């Protein structure tokens, strides 16, 4: 039985003690009551929270994930199940321990999440994003890089950089996403630009002007949006080095930057490589380890590359030679399939939220069948449970 408090947080009343529901569930159903945790702050998530769900409030969800960050099906499911809950899993816990222990005077460490498609990398990144937001770090978040490479909404040749390409619409969207995620924080920090940016004869952003002005300019003038993004990233880097703020860079599908193909074509129908995008340059310069006071968490997925390059989910293969050399040395963290505990916890969550309806599926036999047919793979499990 679920009771809803006015703030939207969910707390449970143990079914055993409530009188009216004594006969609603058949006895053969199994449910373990340990799949939720009340620790809502990711900064405090530790090893013993492994396999537990913690819920994210609507306001946080709106702030962090309006511009993307949660996979589409997961987002729809969270809306159906009346609340976003994320499972705390080993890769995220490992990352949080590293981030808590980081020496922010040293050059930034890069972490690469890898694993099969659908094993939970994006969700782990979402968890880390929440952590960064709670830790007061400026979030630089790219929800899914292949969107820029495979489905560009109009790429134009860049004016400032010869032979490079802009993404006007995507840059505007990204700036909007950035300001939503970091709005309050930016107001508090009051960062200023360190150099002058001349956009045209009449438009320029002087040195010492607030960064919010730069962002607003980018959002209003699509023509200069991409360069605004590049400028913003440069400023953030300098601000981090001079200890004015701490930056967390989270990029999903990083290996798409090194993809051999994109959907952008020149007039002569030749393909433009992703390395010739201005945005790529900007984010690659940000993910280099030549700055301090920050952290870079990146995910690498087989579905970010074309079909021929999806043989292995391992990071060196997915990044390719260029990508590897760019990120080396990095810490690769595997996002595996569910362990037994995590699997049962996930099933418990589905049962509790009334998503897994079939009474027979809620028994031990049903769980065994689901575990076998999904192979403990998170995405497969989600798809199997969806119709029943």
């Amino acid at each position, binding site marked *: 039985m679920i009771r809803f408090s006015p703030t939207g947080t969910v707390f449970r009343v143990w079914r055993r003690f409530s009188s009216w529901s004594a006969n609603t569930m058949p006895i053969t159903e199994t449910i373990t009551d340990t799949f939720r945790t009340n620790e809502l702050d990711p900064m405090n998530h530790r090893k013993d929270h492994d396999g537990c769900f913690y819920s994210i409030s609507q306001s946080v969800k709106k702030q962090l994930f309006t511009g993307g960050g949660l996979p589409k099906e997961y987002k729809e499911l969270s809306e159906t199940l*009346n609340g976003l809950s994320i499972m705390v899993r080993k890769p995220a816990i490992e990352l949080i321990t590293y981030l808590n222990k980081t020496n922010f005077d040293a050059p930034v460490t890069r972490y690469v999440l890898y694993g099969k498609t659908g094993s939970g990398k994006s969700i782990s990144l979402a968890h880390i994003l929440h952590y960064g937001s709670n830790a007061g770090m400026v979030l630089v978040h790219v929800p899914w890089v292949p969107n820029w490479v495979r489905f560009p909404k109009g790429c134009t040749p860049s004016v400032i950089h010869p032979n490079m390409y802009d993404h006007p619409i995507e840059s505007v969207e990204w700036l909007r996403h950035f300001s939503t995620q970091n709005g309050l924080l930016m107001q508090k920090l009051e960062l200023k630009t360190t150099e002058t940016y001349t956009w045209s004869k009449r438009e320029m952003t002087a040195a010492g002007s607030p960064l919010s002005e730069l962002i607003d300019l980018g959002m209003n003038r699509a023509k200069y949006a991409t360069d605004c993004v590049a400028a913003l990233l440069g400023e953030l880097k300098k601000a981090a080095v001079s200890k004015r703020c701490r930056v967390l860079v989270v990029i999903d599908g990083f290996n798409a930057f090194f993809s051999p193909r994109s959907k952008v074509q020149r007039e002569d129908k030749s393909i433009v490589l992703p390395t010739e995008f201005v945005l790529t340059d900007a984010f690659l310069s940000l993910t280099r380890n030549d700055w301090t006071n920050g952290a870079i968490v990146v995910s690498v997925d087989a579905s970010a590359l074309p079909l021929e390059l999806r043989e292995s989910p391992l990071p060196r293969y997915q990044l390719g030679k260029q990508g590897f050399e760019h990120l080396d040395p990095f810490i690769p963290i595997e996002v595996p399939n569910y362990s037994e505990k995590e699997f049962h916890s996930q099933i418990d969550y589905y049962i509790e939220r*009334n998503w897994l*309806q*079939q*009474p*027979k*599926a809620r028994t031990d036999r049903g769980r065994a*069948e689901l575990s076998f047919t999904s192979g403990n793979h998170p995405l497969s499990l989600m798809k199997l449970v969806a*119709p029943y």
Partner: protein
Amino acid sequence: MSLSGVLRKLPSFNAIHCHLNFVGRIARQQPYSMYQPFVKEPTYNIEKLEQLIESGEAKKREFVPVKAARSDQNVSVFHDELTSKFINMVMEKGHKEIATKLVETAYMKIKQMQLAKYYKATTDAERAEIELNPIVIFHKALENCKPVLQLTPIKRGGATYQVPIPITENRARFLAMKWMILESREKERKVHFPERLAYELLDAFNNTGKVVKRKQDLHKQCETNRAYAHYRWG
């Protein structure tokens, strides 16, 4: 065997037809089958099997020849016979995977819609009333759509009359499913089949909607043609 004896003891459709030899229907004793008449259907439900073994029935069936199980008959906890039949009817040109996907998406949409209502509801009583299990909804919806009588054309003296006659369980179920699928395949292409099917099933569950209306229209027709009912026997 007297005629009335047949009707009283065996209300099954096949027996009546083979006895009275209606125009336009082939008189058949049993459907075409590769198997001999004594070969039994397989029991693939694990609970039933366990019951049979416990009660001792299994020993009696040890040497009885049994038909091969079909590829969609399985011991999965999600297996539902009615759903398999429905998927077979949705299937075109043998594309079972597409048919399964469509029906499963429809179930998911039903769950989504019902859960939306569930989480909006404020009192426990309201919540208890909302049915969330899509299979239960599907069964109930089909029940609500099954007609009790059907019309058949009978020629008397140069004119063809639509005569109401009783309907078998299988035929009723078939008609319910057929109507459900036809209504979900309507012309408006923006809304795809699974969504439409979900809406239709929910409506039928609540005894409203196009399919139930169709059943009720049929019943009304049967009622108006009551006068011709005796044409059944000449």
